[in-house]
C-alpha cells in the first residue's frame, strides 16, 4: 500500500479539502444512507424470517456462526492454506505465494511476459488496489482496464476507490456523464441507460481483446479450492472466463474451510454490503477449462497475498482478519460520511481502514487514522463479523503512545492532567483554579447566563466553532454539604 496515493501532504489538509467539497460530501452521504437503509431493511427481514423458522438464522445467529468459522480458520490458517493450494493444483490451477505487494506484481509480470500479454481486463478487487497492480503493470507497457462500472469510472478519473464496495461513491451522475462523454467524444445524458450502454459497449470490446483476466476473490473454499466472486454486473464472470488466462489475487484471510461455511458468510456479505439478499451474479470457479469443455481460461493462477496479514495472527488484532470487505462500517460511520474515502489516504478507508491500514503497514506512519474517530461504535454494531472496530482504534492509540509516536504536546498535557486529576484534593482544587483562570474569557449574556466564546491555547480548538460553558460558581462537590443537610432534615 502506498503511503499516500493522492500526494497530499498530511491528513489535516486532506480533511480540510474533503470538508470543503460539498458535492463530494453530498454524494457520499446520499449513497451511504441508501446502503444503510437497505441493509437495515434486509437484516430486519432476515430476522423476521428467522423468527418464523424460514431462514438459516437471524442476523445475530449468522454473525455468531461466521465468527466461529473465521476464528477456527484463522487458528488453523496454515492447514487450510495448504489444503486450498493442494485442491487448486488438483483442479489444474497454479498456486503462487506473495509475501508482499511487490511479489504479486512480480508474479503477474512473469505470467504476462510468458504469455506475451498486452492487455489485462480486471474485475473489482481490493487486493489488487492494495498492491497497486494497475500502476505496476502499466509501467511495463501492459494495458489494464477495470471492468466494474465503479472501478472504470475512477480509473478514468485517475483515482483510487473511495469505498470498499462502491468505488465511485463520491462521484455525481453529472461528473460520470462528463468523463464518459470525454471518452466517447460526444455529449452524454446523465440517465442510467445511456451511461451503462456506453460502458457496456466500451468494456465488451476490452473483454474480447484481453490476454489476461484478473480478479480478486470474495471467498475461497479450502476443501474444494473454489474461488467465489460476488458481483452485480456480470463483469466478474466475463473477466474470469473470456481471456485465456485468469489470475486471482486472494488475501490469505479470505479462506473458509467448507462449502457449508461459505453459505454462512455468503448470507452476510450482500446483506451487509448493498442490502441485497443475494447479488445478481455469484461465480464459483474451480479450476481452468478442462479437456472437452468449450469455455473458460486455459490457465488459472491463484496468488495468495500476505502483505502484513500474518503479523496479525495471534495478536490482539487477529479478528480484524475476519473482515469480509462489505463496507457496512463505512456506511454508518459519521466520520466517513463527512470526509469520504480519499481523505483517509489509504486504500481501505473508514473504520476498518483506520484499523488495518496501520496494521498491514507501519503504525508509525499511520498514527492519524486511529485518532479520526469519535469512538461511537456504530461500526461495531453494523459489522457482520462483529469486529470490535472502535476498541481496536483505542488499542492502536495505546500502541501509538507506547511507541512514542503520539502527538507529543497533546500527550504530555493529557498525561500531566490525568496524573494530577486522579488525586481528590487536586481535582477539587483544579475546579477552583479553573474557575478563576476562565474568568477573563467568560461573558455574561442578557439573560444572566454565562458563556465562553473564545478560549486561549489548546481550548481554541473547541471555541473556534463552539461555545463553551463556564465552570459553575459552585461545583457539585461544593454543593454537597448543603444537599446532605437537606437530606437529613
Amino acid at each position, binding site marked *: 500500500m502506498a503511503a499516500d496515493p493522492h500526494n497530499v501532504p498530511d491528513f489535516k489538509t486532506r480533511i480540510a479539502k474533503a470538508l470543503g467539497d460539498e458535492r463530494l460530501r453530498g454524494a457520499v452521504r446520499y449513497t451511504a444512507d441508501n446502503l444503510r437503509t437497505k441493509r437495515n431493511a434486509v437484516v430486519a427481514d432476515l430476522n423476521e424470517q428467522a423468527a418464523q423458522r424460514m431462514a438459516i438464522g437471524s442476523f445475530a445467529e449468522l454473525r455468531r456462526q461466521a465468527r466461529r468459522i473465521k476464528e477456527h480458520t484463522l487458528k488453523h490458517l496454515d492447514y487450510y492454506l495448504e489444503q486450498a493450494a493442494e485442491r487448486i493444483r488438483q483442479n489444474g490451477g497454479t498456486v503462487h505465494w506473495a509475501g508482499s505487494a511487490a511479489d504479486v506484481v512480480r508474479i503477474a509480470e512473469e505470467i504476462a511476459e510468458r504469455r506475451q500479454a498486452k492487455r489485462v481486463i480486471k474485475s473489482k478487487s481490493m487486493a489488487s488496489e492494495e498492491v497497486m497492480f494497475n500502476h505496476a503493470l502499466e509501467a511495463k507497457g501492459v494495458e489494464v482496464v477495470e471492468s466494474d462500472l465503479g472501478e472504470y469510472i475512477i480509473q478514468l478519473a485517475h483515482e483510487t476507490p473511495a469505498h470498499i464496495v462502491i468505488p465511485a461513491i463520491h462521484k455525481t451522475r453529472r461528473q460520470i456523464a462528463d468523463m464518459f462523454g470525454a471518452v466517447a467524444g460526444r455529449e452524454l445524458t446523465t440517465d442510467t441507460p445511456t451511461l451503462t450502454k456506453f460502458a457496456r459497449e466500451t468494456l465488451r470490446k476490452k473483454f474480447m481483446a484481453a490476454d489476461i483476466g484478473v480478479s480478486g476473490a470474495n471467498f475461497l473454499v479450502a476443501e474444494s479450492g473454489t474461488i467465489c466472486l460476488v458481483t452485480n454486473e456480470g463483469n466478474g464472470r466475463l473477466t474470469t472466463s473470456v481471456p485465456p488466462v485468469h489470475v486471482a489475487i486472494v488475501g490469505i484471510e479470505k479462506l473458509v474451510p467448507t462449502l457449508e461455511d461459505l453459505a454462512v458468510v455468503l448470507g452476510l456479505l450482500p446483506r451487509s454490503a448493498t442490502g441485497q439478499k443475494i447479488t445478481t451474479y455469484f461465480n464459483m470457479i474451480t479450476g481452468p477449462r478442462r479437456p472437452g469443455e468449450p469455455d473458460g481460461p486455459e490457465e488459472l493462477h491463484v496468488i495468495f497475498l500476505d502483505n502484513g496479514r500474518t503479523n496479525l495472527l495471534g495478536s490482539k488484532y487477529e479478528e480484524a482478519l475476519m473482515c469480509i470487505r462489505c463496507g457496512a462500517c463505512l456506511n454508518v460511520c459519521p466520520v466517513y460520511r463527512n470526509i469520504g474515502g480519499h481523505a483517509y489516504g489509504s486504500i481501505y478507508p473508514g473504520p476498518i481502514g483506520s484499523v488495518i491500514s496501520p496494521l498491514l503497514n507501519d503504525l508509525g506512519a499511520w498514527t492519524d487514522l486511529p485518532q479520526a474517530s469519535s469512538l461511537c461504535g456504530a461500526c461495531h454494531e453494523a459489522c457482520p463479523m462483529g469486529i470490535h472496530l472502535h476498541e481496536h482504534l483505542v488499542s492502536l492509540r495505546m500502541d501509538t503512545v507506547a511507541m512514542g509516536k503520539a502527538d507529543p504536546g497533546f500527550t504530555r498535557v493529557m498525561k500531566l492532567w490525568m496524573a494530577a486529576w*486522579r488525586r481528590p484534593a487536586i481535582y477539587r482544587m483544579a475546579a477552583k483554579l479553573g474557575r478563576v483562570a476562565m474568568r477573563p474569557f467568560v461573558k455574561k449574556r442578557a439573560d444572566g447566563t454565562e458563556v465562553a466564546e473564545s478560549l486561549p491555547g489548546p481550548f481554541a480548538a*473547541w471555541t473556534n466553532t*463552539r461555545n463553551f460553558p463556564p465552570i459553575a460558581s459552585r461545583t457539585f*462537590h461544593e454543593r454537597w454539604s448543603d444537599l446532605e443537610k437537606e437530606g437529613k432534615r
Partner: protein
Amino acid sequence: MKVSLFITCLADHFYPEVGEAVVHLLRRYGCEVDFPPNQTCCGQPAWNTGLEDEARAYARAYIETFENSEYVVMPSGSCAGHVRYYYPQMFKDDKEMYRRACAVADKTYEFSQFLVNVLGVRDVGARFPAKVVFHNNCHMQRELGVFEEPLTLLRHVRDLELLDNPRYDLCCGFGGAFSVKMPEISTAMADERLGIYVGTKADIIVSCDGGCLMHMGGRAERQGLPVRTMHLATLLWEGVKSNGR
C-alpha cells in the same frame, strides 16, 4: 435502599444542577443517597487517548471508592458504559482485580437505567410542556445497552411531546478529546446532527450525557439555532417541581 452517587466530572464542573436533580429524584423514591467525597473522574479521557496505565489508575480509584456501596448511580450513559464495559477488560490479567472490577461494574447504573430497571419507576410525576427529541448517546446505547429507559420516563411526562429521533444511531461528534483533536470533523458532525434535530422542530434536545449536551449546545448557540439542550434528570426534576411535586 442505599445509593452512592458518582457525579461525573462534566456534571460536577459544568452542570452541578444535574447532580442535584438526581439527588432529589432518588430521595423522592426513598433512596438514602451518599456522595463519597474522594471521587474524581471515571478515567474515560485517559482511556480514549491511549493512556492505558493512567486509565487503569482511575479505574482502581473508582473500584476502591465504590466497592462497598450497594448501588452506584451516575448521570451519564457514557461514563457508566465505560465502567461496565471497560473496567473488567482493563484487569483481565489480574484475577483479583478483575473480580473486583466485575463486582463494581455490575452495580453501576446510569441514572435513567437505575430509575426504570431497579426502582421500577416509569412516571416521576412531572409536567413539562415542550416538544422534545431524545439524543441517544453512543456509549449508552452501544456499550451500556440502555435505549428504552429514558424514552419510557419521557413518555410519562405530562404535556411533553416526545418526537421521533431520525437517525438515533448518528453520533453528535463530541467524542471527548476527538472534539479538540479533530475539531473540523467534530464540528461537521455536530452540524449534521443538529440539522436533523432542528428539522424535527423540537424545542429541546434531551440527553443523558453532559458531553453530547455540551457539544451540541455549544454549537447550536454559536450558530443561533432555535433549539436548546437539557439533561434528562434536570428536565424531570424541573417538571416535578412545576407540577407541585
